[in-house]
């Protein structure tokens, strides 16, 4: 099943199961969304449950807050990564705080789906990886799948979460990644890393579209006799701290791979976590292979910005030497 199809099937099955789910976003109805993730859903569930909204992200997320208060469970699609920014005020001040502000009485069981990442030859502001803004915000659960099975399983969990979930969908994977997806109901719990490959020399930690790079690097390293342990973070916030510490301890050498800029990012948090809690298990400096602290470049030169296999392999060489 395609990654995109896995997402669609999670939405479809949960909407069948749970009449409180309502989808809203720009162009998700008749057109099925610019990435075709909601295709067929309006025809199936009607225009009252799959709602085309005005071009107004704060309006979308803000009215989702109200929809939650009315007892519904809204699923917002924000069209591209950078178009989540107009909704940040709602997300930071209300979505993430309403449960807390009402001591649990008014939870916000909403999902905010955001296609993310580069490598798709897109115009400016269509290739950001903004997860850190959300991870820095207490009250949100931030998730990103890297396989079709996880796309379905994590999205299903998101759709059943009592807390607001920001769900990052690497747009590069939508129609390029195909994989097995278990039949029927499939839930992947939040807060559990996935071991994508076992190994003993170095631990590669990644998520989303960067898992492809991590696994390719692991392959390349294997040909040199270096054995990589590859860990998929999956839940970017709150982190599976135990799982991550264990993954680091397996080898004592860690490379973290991410697409976003580096400063105050998820990779920063992962490195900090290890520096606080796994220091005595580490054999070498931690390495971050990350997007640089520059805006995501024009697409003809975005390959310089996006971590690739060569950069990961180089980082591994350096910490093996270290």
């Amino acid at each position, binding site marked *: 099943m395609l990654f995109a199809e896995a997402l669609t099937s999670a939405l479809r099955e949960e909407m069948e199961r749970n009449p409180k789910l*309502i989808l809203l976003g720009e162009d998700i109805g008749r057109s099925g969304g610019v990435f075709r993730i909601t295709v067929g859903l309006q025809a199936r569930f009607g225009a*009252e449950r799959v709602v085309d*909204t*005005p071009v*107004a992200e*704060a*309006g*979308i*997320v*803000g*009215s*989702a*807050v*109200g*929809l939650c*208060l*009315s*007892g*519904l469970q*809204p699923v917002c699609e924000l069209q591209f990564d950078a178009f989540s920014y*107009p909704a940040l*005020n*709602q997300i930071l*001040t*209300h979505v993430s705080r*309403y*449960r*807390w*502000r*009402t*001591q*649990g*009485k*008014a*939870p916000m069981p909403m999902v905010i789906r955001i296609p993310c990442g580069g490598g798709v030859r897109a115009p400016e502001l269509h290739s950001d990886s903004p997860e850190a803004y959300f991870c820095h915000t*207490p*009250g949100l*659960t931030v998730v990103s799948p890297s396989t079709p099975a996880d796309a379905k399983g994590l999205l299903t969990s998101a759709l059943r979460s*009592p*807390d607001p979930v920001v769900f990052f969908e690497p747009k590069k994977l939508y129609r390029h990644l195909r994989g097995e997806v278990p039949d029927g109901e499939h839930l992947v719990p939040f*807060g559990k890393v996935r071991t994508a490959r076992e190994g003993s020399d170095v631990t590669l930690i990644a998520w989303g579209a960067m898992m492809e790079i991590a696994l390719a690097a692991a392959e390349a390293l294997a040909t040199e006799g270096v054995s990589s342990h590859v860990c998929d973070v999956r839940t970017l916030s*709150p*982190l599976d*701290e*135990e799982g991550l510490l264990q993954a680091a301890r397996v080898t004592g050498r860690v490379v973290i791979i991410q697409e976003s800029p580096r400063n105050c990012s998820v990779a920063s948090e992962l490195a900090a976590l290890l520096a606080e809690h796994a220091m005595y298990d580490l054999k070498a400096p931690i390495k971050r292979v990350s997007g640089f602290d520059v805006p995501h470049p024009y697409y003809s030169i975005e390959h310089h910005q996006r971590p690739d296999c060569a950069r990961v392999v180089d980082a591994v060489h350096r910490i093996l030497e270290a």
Partner: protein
Amino acid sequence: MKPGNADPADASLPEGVDEALALELYRQMVFLRIFDERALVYHRHGRIGTWAISWGHEAIQVGAMLALKASDWAFPSYRENKLGLVRGMSPAHVLAGCRGHPQGWWDPHQWRLGAISIPVASHVPHAAGFAWGERLQGRDTVALSFFGDGATSQGEFHEGANMAGVMNAPLILLCTNNQWAISTPVHRQTRARTLADKAAGYGMLGVRVDGNDVLAVYQAVSQAAARARAGEGPTFIECLIYRAQAHAFPDDPSAYRDDTEAEQARREECVGRYANLLMRRGLLTEELAARYREEFLAKMADAIAEAEALPIPGPELAFAHAYERKTPALERDLSELQRIQAKQGTR
């Protein structure tokens, strides 16, 4: 239109307002007024924090709330932090909030009141979404969002209002135009002739009422609610008054405006004006008015004592409710903090 500068010529009650209701409107206005006056004193004593006074806004707050059904929801801003009183919330509860005490929270579902929205206008989309959601679920609930003249400049007011129009949400946008946003006069807030002029941009009815006239507010909101319930969509109501007090305490209006207009506004304030009307109609006596005052003054004295008696909670509460279940990291952080605080013995 100028707010509050004339008593209505006759003292007849509008449709739907019987004498009991007329008096109840007054009683609630007095409650809010006394709350405000006492809260200011408590603030000056240092017994509560920042006080967002709404002295002079009683006609709007009470008129609007009483025009709603008990099943309708209101979405307050900071200026309406005491709106719960009108629905039976205890004043101690509100005062606890003013003391920065966690007991100041409320359950929106219990009171059918959204949480206080501190960022100006950011709750307008909530009210829009809520109203839309109620309609989707076949309920006849109406939502009313309070906000100020300054709030109309915010993008989120715009997005919420526009969305409500498109979704035909049963929403009332109740704008308290008190002519000031802290130090900024409304003519520096927008170049629109009236704030109600904004309604056409959302394809909704815009009306303007004298916000010092509780009966006018009551009537406008009643009509808007009826329209909303009839599926005719949202209404924008501009209630014109003049902010007779400081923005909040602390704030010193003498830095930015001269007091003549405020002075005038204080003379024409809504509670006294409505009392006059009721007295002319023979519905209210000086005695009854005094009785109300006594009643609420006593309530307030008890309430501040009650609020002050609340113990300051330990750290557990700071860690609770961000998520349905505390994360392992929060569990660890909390127990670390408890260990340190125990060692210190100072908390």
